[in-house]
Structure formats: C-alpha cells, structure tokens
C-alpha cells in the first residue's frame, strides 16, 4: 500500500513541474472552455500538493519515536493484549437431568425413572469478517450423538441475516428455545404433537429481516428446508419428498413487539409452514404394493400448520432482580391433505376394496396457556394448561394442567419440579410428577428474548 502511495506521489511530483508549464491559471479566462480548463489544472495541482503533504506526514509519523496517545492512560485493560490470542471458539456444555416419579410408572420415552435426557455440546465462534458459526451437538442414551443445530450466519449484511444449516424452526414462540432452557420441563403438548417432542428442526436456508415501518419492532423470518418434520424410519415412499421443489418445506413467521411501559411489553406473532410428509398407507395396500414390486408403504401428503402466539412480560426495572411475570399462549392448527397421491400398484389388487390411505384425513387444533411468577430472587412458580385434538389419537381431545416450582441457584443452574394431571385416563395414568436439574458449563450464548 505504501509502495503504491509512494509511486503515485512520485508520478504526481514528476507531473507537477509540467503543471508549471501550463498557461497562467491566475489569468482571467477568456471563454467558458478556458475557464473549465483552468479549473481542471487548479484541481490537479491541489491533488498533487495534498498527496505530497500526506507523504510528508506519513514519513514524519514513521520517523517519530512511538508515543502513547495523550488521551489514553498508560496502564489500561487494553494494554494486556488480546483476551483470546489463539482465536479459540467458545466451548460450552449443558446437562439436562430428568427424574420421573409418576405414580403409575415412568412416562419417559426411554422408560427410565432417572436419566440424563440430553447433554448439549456447543462450539461457537466468528468464522471470518462475514460469517459466524454455531454448532450444537445433542448426546442422549436414546438417540446417541446427533446434530441438533449447525449453522452459518451472515454478520456483514446490513439489516438482513441469512442463516444456512440446521436450526430450530422459527415457528411459534417456544420452538426456538432449547428444551433444557424452557420455563417448563417439556415442550407444551401442542408442540410435541404438531411439531416434535424435542423441538422441530429444519436443514436449509433462513432469511431474517427486522423492520419498523409503523414505529414498532417487526421481524420476518422465512425458511426453506429440506424436509418438514422428523423422518419416520418405518415409512417408505415411492419417491423422496424433496424430489420436486414443491415437496420441500417452507415456513414464515412475523413477529410484532411493543413496549407498553418500561416494565411491560407484548409480543404477538403469526407463523405458517407447509411441506410434504410421509403418511402411512393401509397395511393391506402396502402389502399389495410390495407384491407388485413397489417398495413403498407410505404416501407423500401435504401438511400445513398455522399458528399465533402471544407473550406478555412484566419486569419492573428497579426490582427486576426479584419480581417478574410472564403470560404466554400459542394456538396452532394443523391442516392435512385429505386425498394425497397414492402409489399405484402394477399388479391387480384382487379382491381388495378397502381404503388405501391411513394417514390423517382431518385437521387438528391445539393450544396452551402458560404463566410464570417470580416469587424471590431465585424462585419461580408457574402453571400451564394444554388442550389439543391429538393427531396420535385421531383427534380425540386431550387436556392437561400442570404446576411448576423452579429454583435457580445462579444463572448457570436450575432445579425444577412439576406436577401434571391429564384429563384422559390411559395406560400411563392421569398423574405425572417430574423433576429436572440443568447446568451450563462455559460461555453459553444467551438465548433469544
């Protein structure tokens, strides 16, 4: 850079005497063309002079003894150098321990009374001047090691964020919060049944734009993902859902946020997503398909979900360490294709006349309401009410009420106890008692507001 500057200055210095041979610039112009020419010459001479001055300043600065700026004190925190000279990423771990003391036996997926439900390992760092990277690995007895989230995020595009990789889908309020960081021990039932038991993830591209044309915060989050929902290993379709672009998943969410006062605020958001998912075929028809050489037992059916969520928060600024309140609710409606395209059997289905599609042929609605009150600096009580038309029970109504006690010894650990009562008596009984302990090691990045 210095060489280029020097060469430029030398060239200009050579040119400058030539300038002296130009017509006298102080002479009054005789025509508009003369006037423009003289102005051009004057500008050239000024540029040459400025370059030479700059060169002199640079030389003077280089030859002067190094000197701390007067406004900087001699010994400052900056004087100790970089705090991360090896540019190591942030490593952190979160442990999530769950106990199930339900009177009619454990209600956990892995049938344990006590389990380390998940250990989450996170590696997070800025990749380069344009991107940052976040990787979250989930380790559990049930699923082994899995990529929970792994994404690149742009950092240098003004006003816009693009994320590429796997992430918790921005659908509804609670789905983007890691399970161990929820205010309750498990996701609300509507999320478990309509999205996923441990949060719906997607792999693809996420575009996020913040705007405020009406004076309040608005955010649009749109994604395109490889597939919508968890893969069901036992279901095989004639062709993969993502074979055609129309089969991949799309989602959009619009967040609206208002400060009511300094202490209170409200968020009202709307979400929607659509994609094709594997749905089972009638077993008999699947057998006929098998016999005719079509190795499929499932059809691709479009499933769309729409939802709205509301959150009210109150935290007085001066007593914010001791008092706070959250009221939250989400409602979702799952819309299912009634007559998806069924794979055709080449062999005649002799004598078979029954229905062939065994997936959901109706829509389902679900919702929850949750409130949490801070009672001490570290203690909270909460309650949740769940209601839904259960897709796993062909729309049978399910309701549950639960109460929570939470204690945070610090920001980095939490103990929780929950009692839950279901409206429906099934094999698991009506009552659940759950315990939870979570801890966080290392510089875990704060979770979204």
């Amino acid at each position, binding site marked *: 850079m210095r060489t280029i500057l020097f060469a430029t200055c030398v060239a200009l210095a050579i040119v400058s005497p030539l300038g002296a041979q130009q017509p006298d610039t102080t002479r009054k112009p005789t025509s508009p063309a003369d006037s423009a020419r003289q102005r051009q010459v004057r500008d050239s001479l000024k540029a040459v002079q400025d370059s030479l001055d700059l060169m002199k300043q640079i030389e003077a600065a280089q030859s002067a003894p190094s000197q701390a700026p007067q*406004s900087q004190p001699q010994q400052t925190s900056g004087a100790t150098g970089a705090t991360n000279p090896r540019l190591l990423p942030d490593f952190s771990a979160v442990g999530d321990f769950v106990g199930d003391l339900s009177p009619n036996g454990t209600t956990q997926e892995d049938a344990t009374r006590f389990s380390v439900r998940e250990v989450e390992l996170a590696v997070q760092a800025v990749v380069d001047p344009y991107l940052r990277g976040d990787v979250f690995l989930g380790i559990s007895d049930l699923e082994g090691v899995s990529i929970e989230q792994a994404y690149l995020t742009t950092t240098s595009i003004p006003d816009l964020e693009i994320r590429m990789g796997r992430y918790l889908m921005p659908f509804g309020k609670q789905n983007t919060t890691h399970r161990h960081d929820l205010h309750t021990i498990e996701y609300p039932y509507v999320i478990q049944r309509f999205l996923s038991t441990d949060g719906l993830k997607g792999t693809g591209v996420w575009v996020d734009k913040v705007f405020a044309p009406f004076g309040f915060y608005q955010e649009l989050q749109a994604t395109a993902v490889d597939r919508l929902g968890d893969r069901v290993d036992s279901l095989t379709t004639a062709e993969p859902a993502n074979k055609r672009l129309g089969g991949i998943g799309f989602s959009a969410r619009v967040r609206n946020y208002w400060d009511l006062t300094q202490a209170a605020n409200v968020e009202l958001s709307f979400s929607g997503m659509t994609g094709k998912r594997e749905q089972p075929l009638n077993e008999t028809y699947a057998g006929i398909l098998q016999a005719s050489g079509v190795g499929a037992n499932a059809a691709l059916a479009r499933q769309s979900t729409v939802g709205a969520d509301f959150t009210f928060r109150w935290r007085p600024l001066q007593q914010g360490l001791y008092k706070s309140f959250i009221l939250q609710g989400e409602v979702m409606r799952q819309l299912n294709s009634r007559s998806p395209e069924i794979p055709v059997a080449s062999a005649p289905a002799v004598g078979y006349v029954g229905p062939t599609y065994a997936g959901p042929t109706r829509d389902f609605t679900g919702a929850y309401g949750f409130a949490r009150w801070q009672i001490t600096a570290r203690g909270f009580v909460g309650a949740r009410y769940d209601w839904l038309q259960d897709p796993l029970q062909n729309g049978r109504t399910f309701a549950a009420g639960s109460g929570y006690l939470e204690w945070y010894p610090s920001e980095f650990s939490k103990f929780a106890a929950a009692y839950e009562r279901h409206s429906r008596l099934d094999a698991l009984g009506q009552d659940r008692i759950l315990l939870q302990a979570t801890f966080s090691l290392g510089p875990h990045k704060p979770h979204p507001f």
Partner: protein
Amino acid sequence: MNHVIRRIAALALALGTFGFARPAAAQLKVVTSTTDLYDIARQVGGNLVMVTHIGEGYQDPHFIEAKPSFVLQLRNADVWAFVGLDLEIGWMPLLLDGARNPKVRLGGSGYLDVSKAIPVLDVPQGNVDRSMGDVHPLGNPHYWLDPENGRRIARLFKDKFSQLDRKNEDRYEANEKAFEARLNAAEKTWAPYLAQIRGKPVIAYHTSWRYFAQYTGMRIVAYMEPKPGVPPSPSHVFEVIRDAKQAGAKVVVQEPFYDRKMSDLVAKNLGGTVLIVPPSVGGARDVPDYITLMTKDIQAVAAALR
C-alpha cells in the same frame, strides 16, 4: 384493474415517503449501554450527536433484558459504546446479533469498548471459575465512579467522534475540554466532603463501590454479598457484623436495586444506617448528569459518615 394498480402504487409511494424513508444522517447516532456513558457522550458530542441508552440508572446493569425495541436503537447506530469487562455479557450479544449493523459489531468502526481506556481494578490473578460467584475475569467493570475515569471516558468519546466526523474535530475537542473544566470545578467543591470520608470504614453491598472507594479513600471492610452476585446468606451476615464491629463500620452503602432487608439487619446490629446511593446517572430523581452523580454520592457518603 388499472384503478387497483394505481391505488397500490400510491400506497407504496406513501409507505416509501412516510414509513421507510429515513432522515438525512446529519448527526452521529450513538447508543450506550449505561446512562453514565450516555451523559458523558452527550457532553462531548453536544448537538453533533444523538445519544440514547439501553439501561436505566436505577437498574442492575448486569441483568438487562435484550428487548427487541433495543435492537431498533442499535440498527442504525454509528457508535455502540459499552462498559465492557463482561458487564453486558448476558444481553449485549443478542442485541448486536439482532441489530445486523456491521458498524457496531466487534471490529466495526463504531464498536467502542470503553474499558480499553481504563486502568482496571480487581483483575483476578491465577485460576478463575464460577465458584467465585459472578466474577469478572477481566476486572471490575464499575469504573465510572472515579472522576479520573470520567475524564478518560470523555477523551475516548472525543477521539471516537473525531475519527468518525473529522470535520467537527475541533468542536468535540472544545466540548471535551469544557466537560473537564466543569468536572474540575466540581471536584474543587468536593474537598471538604472527601476529608470527611477518607479512611472511614463502610460495608458495601456489591463490588461496584471499589473505584469510588479508591478515589474517596472510603475503606470497604466487608461486602454484603459473600461473593459477587451471590445474595447474603445468614452465616455471611454474621461474619459481616463481626468484621464491621471490629473495624468500627456503621454504614452500609448499597444501590437502589438490591433488597435492603439484610442490610437493614446488619445496620440495626451495628447501630448504624443503610445508605442507598445511586450508582449511575438517573439512579435517583435528582441525578440528571455525571457531575451531579459524583457530587451527590460524595456528599451523601460524607453525611452518613460524619
């Protein structure tokens, strides 16, 4: 159909004019994490800058909620000035990520870690872990309660504003000098109060009074918190009372956002008082600026120790 298209075009034009249009960028837009930085930035920038702040003076700066409305403040900021030393670690990353403003990210022209200009106290030596409470591995971040650091902050703002707005360099310099002159004049009036404070023992709630103590000569003999960020336990309160009695301390100095029950208990046992002092500008109604903050705090502590 044409009618509909014309209406849509008119609406788009209206939104462009009133909704999305931005005013011409005449002033530097500065956002600060605390009210103390806000006031000093305002003094140095004068009407050449537009300053807003995230935290309030009566709020614990460690625990500010990263509200989306703050993202809007940072979205168009030219300068983000923050205390540093991990004071804002719990909420700042969310706001900076949300703002999508490369100017105020680490490495951007407007990213201003004010602690870089400060000689920091209480930098832990040796191994550090969270058994030590909310320890700040880079040192104690409550440095603005020393007027010498107030001057350093003002000079840093002058340098940053001058760097970003060269044509007004002289005005920033003049404003900064005027601020220092006002601070110097105020400092002269503090002398009798400082004489009353120097060497006197007190109990502090949190380590936020370390720089204030260094400047005033106030002697902190015990902390209500057993470890930074950890509320006082009964056994610790017993130790505080014992240590305070030995040192002859009778005043508990604490911020308005901490629960005062335990402090009242200690003061009662010592036959002393709990002094609620604003640690930041706006921490009390009559503390609108930095020089008033220092003046009022020094006067209040001197009165309590008299």
